[in-house]
């Protein structure tokens, strides 16, 4: 069962600014992203203006501000993947999904994220769909991979 925002916030002491990041992380783990309400509520709880909470949250790559899609696609943009052409992979995924990195499709099926390194440098270029790795991919594979997930919904 999903914990409510109230429950997560109540785990941390009111007014303790040092709990900002753990609190945001907990909320993201539970809901998959940080919405406006969460940021406002966190700010009120730890006595930090919402502009600050939002500013700090946007500083870190780990936080998302739009809901993830049913299939969350991560394309690796780490050094090894970059050397193996991951930028073209990312652009191709963007083209096929008609999405930009960081966005979620309107029907909520797909979301796209570029990440720094997924620790599979030997199999570059790598992408990951809902935790499942696709290794040594080529541009020609992309449409097929995505169509596979499209057909499962």
């Amino acid at each position, binding site marked *: 069962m999903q914990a409510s925002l109230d429950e997560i916030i109540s785990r941390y002491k009111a007014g303790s600014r040092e709990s900002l990041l753990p609190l945001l992380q907990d909320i993201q783990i539970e809901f998959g992203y940080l919405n406006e309400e969460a*940021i*406002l509520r966190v*700010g*009120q709880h730890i006595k930090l*203006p919402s*502009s*600050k909470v*939002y*500013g700090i949250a946007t*500083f870190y790559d780990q936080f998302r501000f739009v809901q993830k899609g049913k299939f969350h696609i991560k394309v690796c943009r780490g050094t090894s993947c970059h050397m193996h052409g991951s930028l073209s992979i990312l652009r191709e995924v963007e083209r096929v999904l008609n999405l930009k990195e960081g966005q979620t499709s309107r029907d909520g099926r797909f979301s796209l994220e570029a990440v720094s390194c997924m620790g599979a440098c030997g199999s570059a270029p790598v992408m990951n769909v809902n935790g499942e790795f696709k290794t040594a991919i080529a541009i020609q594979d992309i449409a097929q991979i995505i169509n596979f997930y499209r057909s499962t919904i």
Partner: protein
Amino acid sequence: MLFDIEVNGKTIKARREDTLLMALERNGIKVPTLCHIKDLLPSGACRMCVVEVEGRQGLIPACSHPVEEWMKVRTHSPRVIKARKTNTELLLSNHPDDCLYCERNGNCELQKLAEDLNVRERRFYGKKNKYKTDPSSASLLRDPAKCILCGRCIRVCEEIQKITALEFIGRGNKTQVGPAFNKGMNLSSCINCGQCVMVCPTGALAEKQYPALLQDALHNPEVKTVIQCSPTLSVTLAEEFGLRAGKDIEGVMYAALRKLGFDYVFDTSFGADLMITEQATEFYSRLKFGKLLPMFSSCCPAWIKYAEQTHPDLLENVSACKSPQQMLGALVSNHFAPLAGMSADDIYSVSAMPCIAKKFESQREQMTHKGITDVDLVLTTRELARLIRLNGIDIEQVEPELSDQPYQSRSTAGKMLAVSGGLTEAMIRTLHFLITGKETTQLKIQELRSGKGRKEYFVKIGEYKLGFAVVNGIGNVEPLISEIQKGRTDIHYIEVMACEGGCVGGGGQPIHPEKNNIKARAKSIYELDEKESNRFAHQNASLQSVYNSFLKEPGSELSLMHLYTTYEEREVMK
């Protein structure tokens, strides 16, 4: 404790607690800065103040490095100059090339640095992000494309005003400055004080302006234009024309305004006298009934927005009087217009203020009458000066004139609204008359004239032992409010002005003011008070005749209808 350090081959004295920059400045050595704000903690972000220190490998930012005894410093060595120049070029690499069309052309710190450092070509082409300007606020226009991320606005908003409406958003080359969720400023906790505009080195933050509307009105024969000038303006405007700070050019200003084409020129000090008389009456009646005390002042629109969004439970303690601008605006619509045989719709009512929050105030729903604003357009000191220059008026050749009837006379009490503490002094004078029926002889209240952010004064008037508190800089109001919420009862009247020093330090004043200029403006106001004969708001002859012929008495039915207002709780992103 003083000790010697060596700078550029010469020995200078430095103090132990100083930063390197402070020591250099004290000895007349100028080092360029960009992100630095005097009296705030250094941030060291822009690296413009770097200097060479012998024995240190890298260059050292003077603004954030403490001065030490062993130091041998070079402030303008070729290496230092090269670093500063490259820094500037990098800042320019993604800056829009539209200086000629920029609000701050000729008054921009980045432009000046580029010029001083001899930047003559574009060596770096940075990636330019696409930004939208944010026109959502009634007072502010934000253009992130021109922002160089120095963070001054953020620090002023957070450390001095304690509002924290702005913050860095994102990271790396996508960083920008904006309010929470990067939404419009109108939804943020911004109180429109404009202190961010005052510290912005470029044109990224500026006041909202409508020059075309004003030009149309001034040149439309069917529209009568009326302008009112804030008590602060006459002692500030001179600076915009290179004259001595604090020089009072009241008469010259009125004459210049007539030359601009305004049909009627009024002085908001009259509105201030009116407000003091009404507010003293309101305060006296609260005293008599012992209700809704302490009473907060209501003339500062930035404070009003702050109260509405932060302390809705205190709103009934805020005086219901409109600000002088809006009182005079309402009188122009409802008293002056019929008197001059016009309808309020035929009048284009302008005000010139040292403030950008006044722009917001004039647009408040409560300040409209059947959908028509009492004050149609608010100009800042800067905009007015530009308008005067645009029309080719040489301020030094203009013969002084008087403002127009029926609001011609004013007291120096009204004039004192320009400075923090001045409103309270003026209130005490009128209150003394209301309570005892006699004028007070103690006119100068030294306790209220200090430069402190919070001042208190206790006095016995008639049978009442009264406490007055004065706050300037909105960041200083919260401690006082929490003392009152914890049960402090010796304070009866609280004057709040959102800007440091009061309106003389307002967000619509000339950009980058020296602290000394703000002091000179205040001094000039106090000198007027010493010099002139009418020092009591309620003795203002024009005001008395307006009461006799129109309003009848303070707090009358007509007063309540035109001069009082209401407040609303505001939901903002705090």
